[in-house]
């Protein structure tokens, strides 16, 4: 890079600076810009290779892979691989849907109420409550696995959907409450005052005024929670026994074990298992990103 010349003088003379700026634009800018674009494209390519390789492999035949190598274009497109993988994954996909949707809905309801109270009400211990919730969002799953496993067995809930739903709601509460609290903080307080003057109860104000205005935060939260809960692996492993109750993340592992060196089928399985969250991500990327930047350290 050719910064040295410009670095020597330190912007005291504005005219000189402007002159230098135009010089830089004419000679340096195109080179720098060009190399920046090149570097960015290269990084993007490297970043995309795993996805591309998986997609390519999923529609090939085994002889094609062994003869032509993994990076050649497929000699024939075996779309049937994906269909077969889908049919085999169906019980797991079904389980994931049954687990994820109520978990997301439950998390949102609980978090909206708690976030509303924390953000809009004055009460003793409020900042402590907030501190506890922030801290809990960092609690590793490892310190809850054993007792929850035991508790669910004691309650006769081992290998059920309901145990997984409860646990997901529990795990997501701290983060979701945090997001809702932060969001309600940005809603003007006059809304609540107006409601109170009209004699509305706290519950009515919450239901009629605050829930409707929370829509932007909710859509971001829904997309994030859906992805996180759908993608969970450990609870699915620990809390289930039979195939019927296992989520698709566990399914992909047994799928891999079953097909071992049938790369095309393993890749197809991965594609099928990834489609729901990928679709949600691509469709709602804006919400997803907004949610991530609303103060999250998860991912």
């Amino acid at each position, binding site marked *: 890079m050719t*910064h040295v010349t410009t670095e020597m*003088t330190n*912007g005291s003379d504005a005219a000189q600076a402007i002159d230098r700026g135009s010089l830089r634009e004419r000679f340096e800018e195109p080179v720098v810009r060009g190399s*920046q674009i090149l*570097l960015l*494209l290269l990084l*993007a390519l490297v*970043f*995309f*290779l*795993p996805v591309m*390789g*998986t997609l390519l*492999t999923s529609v090939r035949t085994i002889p094609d892979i062994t003869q032509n190598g*993994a*990076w050649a274009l497929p000699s024939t497109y075996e779309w049937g691989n994906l269909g077969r993988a889908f049919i085999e994954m169906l019980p797991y996909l079904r389980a994931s849907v049954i687990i994820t949707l109520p978990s997301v809905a439950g998390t949102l309801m609980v978090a909206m*109420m708690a976030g509303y*109270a924390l953000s809009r*009400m004055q009460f003793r211990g409020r*900042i402590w*409550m*907030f501190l506890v919730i*922030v801290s*809990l969002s*960092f*609690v*590793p799953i*490892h*310190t809850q*696995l*054993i*007792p929850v496993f*035991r508790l669910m067995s004691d309650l006769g809930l081992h290998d059920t959907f309901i145990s997984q739903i409860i646990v997901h709601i529990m*795990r997501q*509460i*701290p983060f979701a409450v945090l997001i809702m*609290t932060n969001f309600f903080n940005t809603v003007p307080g006059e809304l609540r005052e107006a409601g109170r003057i009209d004699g509305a*109860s*706290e519950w009515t104000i*919450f239901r009629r005024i605050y829930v409707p205005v929370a829509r932007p935060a909710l859509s971001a939260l829904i997309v994030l929670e859906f*992805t996180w809960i759908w*993608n*969970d*692996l*450990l609870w699915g492993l620990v809390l289930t026994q039979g195939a019927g109750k296992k989520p698709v993340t566990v399914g*992909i*592992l047994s799928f*891999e074990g079953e097909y071992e060196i049938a*790369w095309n089928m393993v*890749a197809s399985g*991965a594609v099928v298992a*990834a489609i729901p969250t990928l679709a*949600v*991500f691509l469709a709602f*990327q804006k919400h*997803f*990103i907004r949610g*991530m930047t609303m103060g999250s*350290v998860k*991912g």
Partner: protein
Amino acid sequence: MNARLTPWLFLMPAILIYGIFGAYPIFQTFAISLTDQVGVAAPGKFVGLQNYADLIGDAYFLNSLKNTGIWVIMFLIVPNSLAITIALLVKQTFWGSSLIKTVFFLPLALSFAIVGVVWGWIYEPDVGLLDQLLISLGLEGLIVEWLGPDAATYSVIAAAAWRQTAFATVVFLAGLSAIPQELIEAAKVDGGTRRQIFFRIMLPLLKPASTIAVSSALIHALLATEIVLTMTEGGPFGSSEVVGYRMYMETFWNYKFGYGAAIGVIVTLMTAIMVVPYVLRMAKAQERDWS
């Protein structure tokens, strides 16, 4: 409705669910870690700190601890520096912005199960995507046994870093977008060089974003259980185990609940130490908001 009771009524569902299924288990884990409980059938007997004492002499545990250290160091450096580079490049070139961004964000949508399975066969000897790529580029010399005892930890970290980079890129891009463009223009007019502008203006203003990216990297590196489980199952010969994975193995494969709980406690304490500054910052910001 009683005004003093109302907030707690709104908080009740969250407190009940988390209390029973989240908070109470945390205390139980501490209690179980002081026993020699095996499996769920019967409670173990009290052994004091014996499990913790045993851990100090446990070669598998110490090895997993060492690997977790490698994870933390690599995870702080690799994804974050890659992400800030990508974010700056995207911001400055605007080249195909949204499509390019999607490419970089995409791994965020994938579960560790899928990342693990996909990268597992990327690393497969000879037929895997990586070896195939190196061969077609004429770089056979670089090939090592990616998931062998020497390289496995780093290979798994690379896979996880792929996903973590996506997260950090999101965070840094948001941070960069929050910097007023006039500030940078003004610095340029004043004759500031790219390097000066980056280190003196952009980097300090990226502090909130950096805090998030760094905390996230720390937490993911400390736990890292799912990706190790799916890619190597800690192997070969335990060489790529991390602390979180050890906890899972001792508990749900060896059924040593007391011992596993002790590891769980240690993982939790390590996380707590790392996130305290972050938590305090958030609380302070909130108090300012409310006052």
